[in-house]
């Protein structure tokens, strides 16, 4: 209760100090305007206009400040969060919270794919055992990995595993029609050696 009153008082004092600072600026600007007008026209204009101009500027400033602060989506000057920003070069600079950062969550499609893979019985987490369908996925080359078969007579692939877009989950296993020993080499991790033909 007392803290809120103190905070409100501090905000009011800050607003009043901002308006007072602008009142001084407005008085100086009006005086400068009056002097410049007198010098350029070589005629002494009555100072009432200068005083009226200064008072009108100081009276209009809070209203305009509130409107401008609404325009930029912040509170009016001296009302808490709004602070003068020195050295800000552009209104689109990320100092105001527009900085692009990494997404806090994964993309929606990514989670859907993961759920689909889990529904298929495929382990998608790190450290999964390379058995079952996951092992078959590891055994088949991905579409971006070229399949290189050494040897002229050798393994006949029952189905091109590259026909499956996600690495061949539903592709049939390798069926070997040849009798000659062969080796399927590809850019695979050293932990999963190529299965020898039998």
């Amino acid at each position: 209760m007392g803290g809120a009153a103190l905070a409100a008082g501090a905000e009011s004092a800050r607003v009043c100090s901002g308006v007072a600072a602008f009142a001084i600026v407005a008085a100086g600007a009006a005086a400068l305007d009056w002097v410049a007008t007198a010098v350029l026209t070589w005629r002494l204009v009555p100072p009432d206009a200068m005083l009226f101009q200064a008072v009108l500027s100081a009276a209009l400033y809070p209203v305009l400040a509130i409107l401008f602060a609404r325009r930029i989506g912040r509170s009016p000057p001296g009302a808490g969060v709004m602070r003068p920003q020195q050295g800000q070069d552009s209104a689109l600079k990320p100092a105001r919270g527009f900085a692009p950062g990494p997404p806090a969550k994964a993309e929606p499609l990514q989670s859907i794919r993961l759920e689909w893979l889990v529904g298929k019985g495929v382990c998608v987490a790190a450290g999964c055992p390379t058995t079952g369908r996951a092992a078959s996925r590891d055994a088949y080359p991905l579409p971006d990995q070229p399949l290189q078969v050494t040897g002229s007579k050798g393994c006949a692939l029952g189905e091109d595993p590259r026909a499956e877009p996600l690495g061949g989950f539903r592709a049939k296993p390798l069926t070997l029609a040849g009798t000659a020993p062969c080796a399927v080499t590809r850019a695979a991790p050293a932990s999963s050696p190529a299965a020898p033909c039998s």
Partner: protein
Amino acid sequence: MDQTSLLPAVALASVWFWSLYRPGAMSPPVVFAIGLLLDLLDWLPIGTGVLTLLLTHGWRSAGGGG
């Protein structure tokens, strides 16, 4: 209260506010253009509004006025 009374007040308040909170949006050429427009619309001697607004902007940019 007519337009000639309101124009300098609105221009000065606008230049002060945006120079304080958006210095990039209120560059000296923009201030010069506003001052020139103010002089033309207010039937003032050309240069008085420009001088006043540019000095205000420069003082604010130099850190004056809190």
